[in-house]
């Protein structure tokens, strides 16, 4: 009995150390990049990092909401792998409507958001009604959505010159890119909804402990379903920035987005004191991932090595999250 307490304490501190591991690796990598590339630590690079991170930041916020509601176990908890595909589908719909059909942008956006909600609803039904694990359900919808993208675009690129999209790409407000400002506003709104409203608090309660939430009369199923709709909506909104960034819709854009979304969101958990996925953590994670991509390219690292490093980082992030949880639960048990 006397030895179990120090043992438990050392396990808890071990768990904290493991949890911080991804962050330590990232900071070390960024430190290295700042030394290796003379112009890495400049305002221009920072602006570039933020601008290139925008679509990833938005979909990461969507994924965070799903993880908040479903719990942060990567396999059995909340996850939505279909958000990047939903973003690219929405971008394809807008591009197809605006460029090929002459539809006004606002109307095209409504259609795209409608399609996004539909994808979210399918995810919700698969997970909540049918009881599939979110990982498999959203992987399946993602594959289906990529198929729909090909049908909508005939696997072809569609250029978009709409002035609003061009403004999102090139415009600035007080010297800051419009896309960055809009993303910050979206973050504030989502942060408010998730942390300052009853809906948000209930959502987090469901993710924290589904049983406890059910006992206090909160319908976990309802919140999990709604989280998928919110996530898909962020995909629909990200479409505007996907279009702005690419000056049009290009099939295949979802692959890179998926990699960055998963890496950024779970890396973001390392920022939170309890190692859980949070909105602001995901945003920071997305910025860090973008910084790494740009940094590696600035020092001339081969693009395939960059992909390899990102893959390895996902492994480190996810593995350290599971390890940290295991060590912590052993600590609690001791």
């Amino acid at each position, binding site marked *: 009995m006397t030895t179990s307490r120090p043992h438990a304490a050392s396990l808890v501190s071990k768990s904290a150390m493991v949890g911080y591991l991804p962050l330590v690796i990232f900071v070390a990598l960024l430190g290295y990049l700042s030394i290796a590339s003379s*112009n890495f630590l*400049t305002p*221009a*690079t920072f602006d*570039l990092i933020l*601008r*290139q991170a925008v679509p990833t930041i938005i979909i990461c916020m969507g994924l965070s909401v799903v993880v908040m509601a479903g719990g942060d176990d990567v396999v059995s908890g909340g996850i939505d792998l279909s958000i990047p595909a939903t973003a690219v589908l929405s971008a394809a719909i807008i591009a197809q409507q605006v460029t090929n059909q002459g539809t006004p942008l606002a109307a095209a956006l409504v259609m795209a958001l409608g399609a996004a909600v539909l994808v979210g609803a399918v995810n919700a039904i698969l997970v909540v009604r049918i009881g599939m694990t979110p990982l498999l359900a959203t992987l399946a919808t993602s594959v289906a959505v990529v198929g729909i993208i*090909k049908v909508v675009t*005939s*696997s*072809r*690129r569609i*250029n978009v010159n709409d002035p609003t999209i061009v403004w999102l*790409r*090139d415009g600035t407000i007080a010297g800051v890119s419009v896309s960055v400002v809009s993303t910050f506003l979206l973050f504030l709104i989502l942060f408010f909804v998730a942390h300052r409203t009853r809906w948000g608090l209930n959502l987090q309660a469901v993710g924290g402990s589904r049983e406890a939430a059910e006992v206090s009369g909160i319908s976990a199923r309802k919140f999990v379903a709604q989280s998928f709709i919110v996530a898909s909506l962020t995909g629909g909104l990200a479409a505007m920035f996907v279009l702005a*960034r*690419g*000056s*049009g819709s*290009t*099939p*295949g*854009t979802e*692959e*890179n987005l998926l990699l960055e979304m998963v890496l950024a969101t779970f890396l973001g958990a390392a920022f939170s004191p309890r190692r859980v996925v949070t909105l602001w953590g995901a945003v920071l994670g997305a910025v860090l991932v973008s910084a790494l991509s*740009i940094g590696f*390219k*600035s020092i*001339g690292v*081969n*693009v*395939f090595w960059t*992909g390899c490093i990102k893959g390895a980082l996902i492994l480190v992030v996810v593995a350290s999250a599971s390890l940290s949880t295991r060590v912590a639960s052993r600590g609690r048990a001791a």
Partner: protein
Amino acid sequence: MTKSILSGVRALSLGVAAAAVMATSAFAADLSLAGKKIGVAVVGTQHFWDREAFNGALDKVKELGGEAVPVDGGRDNQVHADNHDILLNQKVDAVISILGDGAVEPKFEALKKAGIPVFTVDHLSPHGVNNTTSDNYYMGTTIGRYMADAIGGKGKVAVFNAFEGALRICGIRTGLWKYVMQDYPGIEIMQPELAEEFANAPEDARKKTLDLLNQHPKGTIDAIHVGCWDQPAIGIVQALEEAGRTEIKVTALDGGPDTLEIMAEEGSPFVANVAQQPRKIGSTAAMNAARHFAGESLLPQTFVDVRPVNGPEEAKAVYKELGYGEIK
């Protein structure tokens, strides 16, 4: 008398040729990129063409004394476009940009605004100083004639045509192929046209061809043409062999060693191509950057020679001529 005139003309022409060679080499020796940082952006390096154009540019930049800053899009047009932001941020002196779709245009515009000249490869842009490319007009019409001949001037043709609207070079190649088809009323271009993927093109085209063959029984397709390049043709030939439908003729454009080898095989359904010289294209773009810095004014486009390839024997000959080795 005639003999002496002829020998005089020959001597004169040899002299002119020698003088031209000397002038060119003297001029080439003057070219320099010393002290210049040249960004070289390529859309991907998985395919022979992209890799050769990229290496050709990089090697020439180094040979001319410049510092090359390479960035690779990993066969993703969005990543390729974003890489230009990094070159802008690195404050390079010039950018050589290889391929890319409409996503790169605003990036070129930003580079131009920052006073960084852009030299494109296979991408005509209003914001570029010069575009180095193959003679796409010749490629489109030649492959049209060869394909029509291969099927006796009549029949049904399926076409892989994902990029006619997205890349100008593809618009030229496929547009002129269609222009030639107008003179063969017996040839029908099957609708809808097929669209190949930009990444994983061989495997994607293999699957799409197998689907096409399932839908159209033997005797109802005479040729499959790839409008702008030939990586999908690798998968098309594979599918035809798997389905035992090698009577269908395949034509495409680019002619790297991988596809020339397939063409050279006995009884290969892949019958015609137009081979480009991607390494020369890349190095010419780097030379053009040097010419620009030397104060020379460049024409909007520099065209690099191509080699038409009609049948297996020509495939073997061109393979050897372009320095890829020897096919026995």
